[in-house]
C-alpha cells in the first residue's frame, strides 16, 4: 500500500513539475495569464504530493515494512524511533526524495509569498524552480526509487519498483540498518541543514534567471531574494560547522576538517554565496557589479549542482560518497543543461549591454575596489579548491597515475587567501565609498591598527611562531575594525541624539540590522579564525601504551588511566570503555570515558573523552587494548572551542541581519508596487 501510494504521488509530482515548467515558460513568453496561473497551481500541487511520498517512506521505515528495499537498507528492528525517521535521508533514493521535498517546499513558499510583489518575474521563477524539481523527481521516479520492493521470482530475490510477471512480494525478517557512523545525533540535523542550504540557493538563482529571461534587470530581483540567500547561507554555514563538529566527536582523528572532496564540494557554494552576499551591497548602493552579481548567484547554484554530482556520481573518491549508482550520467547531462542555460543567458545579456553599470569605479582605493578584490579572492579560493577536487581524477585519466592532493596542497593556498580575506575584513569597512586616500584610511584605521599592534607585541613577548603572529594579527585586525565600526556608530548617535551608549547600540541594531548584524557575523568569523589558527598550528599529540595507574602528560594536562572494562549496548554493540582521570598541576579535574565501539556489522567507532575549556580541548582516544594494557592517543587542541562558539555568534548575527523590520518591509512593498503596475496588467494572482 505504501509503495503504491509513493509510486503514484512521485509520478504525479514529476508530471506536475514538468507541466508547471513548460506552461509557465509558455505563459511568460506569450503573456498568457491562464497558462501562468495553471502553472502556478501545478507547482503548488507538487508539495502535497511529495510530502505524501515522504510520509510513505518514513511510515515504511517506522513500521519496519522491509518489503521496501530502502527500508531494509536503512533501518532495522533494533533502531530507535528518531533514527527511523531520519533514515529518510539515510541512502541515495531517500535523500533525493528529501531534496525534492525541500525544493518543493521552498518553491511553494516563494510562490505564495512573492507572487504579488514580483509579478513580472514569478512565471520565470516557476519555470526554473520546477525545471530543477522536475529533474530530481525524474531521478527519483526513474533511477533511484525509494519504493522499489523485494520480489521472489523462481526462487530468486530481485528488487524492482513494479511487480515482474509471476513474482510475489518478499519481506525480509529484519533490516540491514543504517551505517553505524550515521547513528549519531549529528545525522539528524547535518544533512537537512546542508540540503536546506543547497536547495535554498536555487531560489536566488531562479530569480536571477527570471530577471535575465524577462529583461527585468533592475535591483528588484536582488531585494526579493536577499533573505533567501542569507537564509541559505546560514544553513550552509550551519551544515558545515555541524559536519565538522560531528567529525570531531565520532571520527576519532582529533580534527574537524579533512579537505575531503565531498566536504570541499559543500564549501564551494558557501564561498560563492558569501561573495554574492557582499557583492550585492555594491549593486544596491551604487548600481555597479551587475555582471558580477549575476555571475556569482549563477555560480552558487552551479556549484550546488556540481557538488551533488560529485557526491553521487562516483567521480570523486571519498568516505562520504554514496555507493556508485547509475545516476552519474543523467546528473552530468543536467549539469551541462544548467551551465548552458545559465551562463548562456548571462553572457547574452552582458554582451547586449543590459547589465551596464550605473556608476564607474572612481578610485583605486575605495570601498568598491576592495569589494572587487574580495570577489577575486573568493573566485581564487573556489578555483583552487575545485581543482583540488578534480585534479586526482583528471591526472589519473590523462597520465595514468593516481595522485592525492592532500592537506598540504589546500593549506598552501587557503592560508594566504583567507589571510587576505581577513585583511579585507579589517580594512574595507573603514574605507570610504567612491574614493579614499591613504591618509584618510590611515586615520580611520588608527585605533584598530594600534590595538592590533598591541596584540602582536603581546604575542611576541609570550613567544610564538612568526607565522602565527601574522595570522593572529590579521584576524585581530578584522575584529578590531569591526568593533571600531560599532564604536563609531555609537559615538555618532551619542553626539547627535545624546543617547547613552547602550541605547545607542540598541538603536544601531534596530535601525540597520543588515549592517550591524553583518558586523556581528564578521565577529563570529573572527572568533572562528582564532579557533582555527590555534587548533591547527598549535595542536599537540602523543600516542602511548600504558598499564592501569600510569599517566600520560601532554601540555598542561595529565591523564591517569584507571581501568578498562567491556560492556554490551542495547543494539548489541560491544563497547570497550576506559576510565581515565584528567589532572592539572596534580589536581583532578574530570573523569572521562573514552571508548571504542564494535558494531555487530564489524565496523568500529571511536568516541573520544574530551575535557573542553575555552583555552583548549584535552581529547583522549582509546585506540587499542590488549587485556589491561591500553594504547591511548591524546590530542591537545588549543582554542578549538572558539570554532564552535564563533559559530554561535555567526548564527546570531545572521538572524539579526535577516530579521525583518516592519517599516522597512512596508516601504519596500509600496515602492515595488508603485514600479510594478504598467497600464492594463492585472496585479492580482
Amino acid at each position, binding site marked *: 500500500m505504501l509503495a503504491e501510494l509513493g509510486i503514484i504521488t512521485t509520478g504525479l509530482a514529476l508530471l506536475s513539475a514538468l507541466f508547471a515548467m513548460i506552461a509557465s515558460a509558455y505563459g511568460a513568453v506569450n503573456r498568457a495569464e491562464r497558462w501562468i496561473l495553471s502553472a502556478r497551481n501545478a507547482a503548488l500541487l507538487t508539495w502535497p504530493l511529495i510530502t505524501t511520498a515522504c510520509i510513505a517512506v518514513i511510515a515504511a521505515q517506522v513500521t519496519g515494512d522491509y518489503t521496501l528495499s530502502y527500508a531494509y537498507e536503512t533501518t532495522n528492528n533494533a533502531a530507535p524511533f528518531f533514527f527511523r525517521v531520519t533514515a529518510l535521508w539515510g541512502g541515495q533514493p531517500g535523500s533525493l526524495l528529501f531534496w525534492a521535498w525541500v525544493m518543493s517546499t521552498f518553491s511553494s513558499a516563494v510562490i505564495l509569498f512573492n507572487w504579488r510583489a514580483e509579478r513580472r518575474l514569478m512565471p520565470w521563477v516557476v519555470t526554473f524552480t520546477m525545471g530543477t524539481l522536475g529533474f530530481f523527481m525524474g531521478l527519483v521516479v526513474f533511477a533511484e526509487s525509494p519504493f522499489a520492493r523485494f520480489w521472489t521470482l523462481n526462487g530468486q530475490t530481485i528488487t524492482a519498483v513494479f511487480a515482474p510477471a509471476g513474482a510475489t512480494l518478499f519481506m525480509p525478517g529484519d533490516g540491514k540498518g543504517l551505517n553505524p557512523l550515521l547513528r549519531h545525533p549529528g545525522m539528524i540535523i547535518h544533512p537537512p541543514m546542508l540540503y536546506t542550504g543547497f536547495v535554498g540557493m536555487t531560489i536566488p538563482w531562479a530569480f536571477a534567471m527570471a530577471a535575465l529571461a524577462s529583461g527585468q534587470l533592475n535591483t528588484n530581483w536582488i531585494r526579493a531574494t536577499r533573505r533567501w540567500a542569507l537564509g541559505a547561507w546560514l544553513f550552509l554555514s550551519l551544515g558545515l560547522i555541524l559536519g565538522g563538529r560531528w567529525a570531531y566527536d565520532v571520527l576519532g582523528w582529533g580534527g574537524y576538517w579533512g579537505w575531503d572532496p565531498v566536504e570541499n564540494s559543500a564549501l564551494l557554494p558557501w564561498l560563492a554565496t558569501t561573495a554574492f552576499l557582499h557583492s550585492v551591497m555594491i549593486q544596491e548602493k551604487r548600481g555597479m557589479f551587475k555582471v558580477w552579481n549575476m555571475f556569482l548567484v549563477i555560480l552558487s547554484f552551479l556549484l550546488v549542482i556540481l557538488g551533488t554530482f560529485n557526491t553521487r556520481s562516483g*567521480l570523486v573518491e571519498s568516505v562520504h560518497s554514496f555507493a556508485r549508482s547509475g545516476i*552519474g550520467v543523467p546528473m*552530468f547531462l543536467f549539469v551541462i543543461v544548467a551551465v548552458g542555460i545559465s*551562463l548562456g543567458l548571462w553572457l547574452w545579456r552582458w*554582451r547586449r549591454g543590459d547589465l*551596464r553599470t550605473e556608476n*564607474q569605479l572612481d578610485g583605486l582605493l575605495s570601498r568598491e575596489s576592495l569589494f572587487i578584490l574580495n570577489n577575486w579572492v573568493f573566485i581564487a579560493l573556489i578555483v583552487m579548491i575545485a581543482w583540488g577536487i*578534480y585534479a586526482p581524477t583528471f591526472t589519473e585519466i590523462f597520465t*595514468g597515475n593516481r595522485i592525492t592532493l592532500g592537506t598540504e596542497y589546500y593549506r598552501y593556498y587557503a592560508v594566504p587567501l583567507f589571510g587576505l580575506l581577513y585583511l579585507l575584513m579589517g580594512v574595507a569597512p573603514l574605507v570610504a565609498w567612491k574614493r579614499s586616500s591613504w591618509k584618510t584610511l590611515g586615520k580611520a584605521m588608527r585605533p584598530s591598527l594600534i590595538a592590533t599592534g598591541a596584540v602582536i607585541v603581546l604575542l611576541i613577548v609570550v613567544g610564538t611562531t612568526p607565522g602565527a603572529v601574522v595570522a593572529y594579527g590579521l584576524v585581530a585586525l578584522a575584529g578590531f575594525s569591526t568593533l571600531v565600526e560599532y564604536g563609531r556608530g555609537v559615538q555618532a548617535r551619542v553626539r547627535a541624539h545624546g543617547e547613552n551608549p547602550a541605547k545607542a547600540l540598541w538603536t544601531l541594531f534596530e535601525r540597520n540590522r543588515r549592517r550591524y548584524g553583518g558586523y556581528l557575523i564578521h565577529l563570529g568569523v573572527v572568533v572562528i579564525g582564532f579557533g582555527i589558527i590555534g587548533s591547527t598550528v598549535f595542536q599537540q599529540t602523543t600516542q602511548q601504551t600504558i598499564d592501569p595507574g600510569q599517566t600520560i602528560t601532554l601540555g598542561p594536562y595529565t591523564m591517569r588511566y584507571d581501568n578498562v572494562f567491556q560492556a554490551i549496548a542495547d543494539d548489541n554493540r560491544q563497547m570497550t570503555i576506559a576510565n581515565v582521570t584528567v589532572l592539572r598541576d596534580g589536581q583532578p579535574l574530570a573523569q572521562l570515558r573514552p571508548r571504542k565501539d564494535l558494531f555487530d556489522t564489524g565496523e568500529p567507532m571511536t568516541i573520544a573523552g574530551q575535557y573542553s575549556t575555552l583555552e583548549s580541548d584535552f581529547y583522549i582516544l582509546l585506540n587499542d587494548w590488549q587485556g589491561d594494557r591500553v594504547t591511548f592517543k591524546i590530542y591537545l587542541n588549543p582554542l578549538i572551542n572558539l570554532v564552535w562558539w564563533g559559530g554561535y555568534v555567526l548564527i546570531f548575527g545572521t538572524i539579526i541581519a535577516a530579521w525583518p523590520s516592519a517599516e522597512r518591509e512596508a516601504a519596500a512593498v509600496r515602492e515595488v508596487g508603485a514600479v510594478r503596475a504598467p497600464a492594463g496588467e492585472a496585479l492580482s494572482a
Partner: protein
Amino acid sequence: MTVQSPNTFPNTRTTKRLPIAPIAIISVVALLIIGLGIALFEVNQPPLDHGAAPDIALVTFDNQPFKLSANQGKIVLLNFWASWCNTCPGEAPILNKLWNDYRAKGVVFMGIGHLDNRADALAFMARYEMQYPTAPDDGNHVSDAYRVNQVPETYLIDQHGALAFVLHGPVTADFDTELRTRLDKLLASQTNQG
C-alpha cells in the same frame, strides 16, 4: 557621480577590445565539462570481463621474472590477493589444490599481491602455505591495468591471451567447480588444436 562622455557605450568603442572575460569563462567551463565527461566515461567503464588480457610484467617473491606475453599459448590463471583481505585465507587452500591438480597439465598460476607490504605478504603466504608462484604488484601497475580495486579477484586467461572467465570475489567451492570445468574445456581445446 559618473564619468561618461556622450558616446560612451561599452560595446561601440573605436578600438574593438577582445572580450577576455567571457572567452576565459567559456573556455574554462567547456574544458571542465569535457574533462568531467571523460572522467565519467572512464569511471563507468565496466570491470575487465572479456577481451584481450592486458600484458603484465612482474618479479616474483623468488626473484623470477614473469611476463604474460611470454606465456602465450598456455592457459594462465591470475589471482589478486592481499594479506589484509578477509576472504583470502578462505580461498588459499582451494587455490593450492587447484594448482596442484593442474600444474602438470601446463596451466600457469600467478598470485599477485595487491597493495601489500612485503613482510605481511610473505607472512600470509607462509601461514596459508601458498605454493603457487606469487609476485608483489609494486607500483600498483598490474592492478591498474586490470582495474582491480578490491581483492580477491581471479582471472582465467586462455591460450590465445583472451579473458575466459573473471571472478570478482573469493574462490568458493562452487567457483572452484566452475573453474575446473572451464580449465578442462580449455585444455581439451588446446590439445585439439595443438
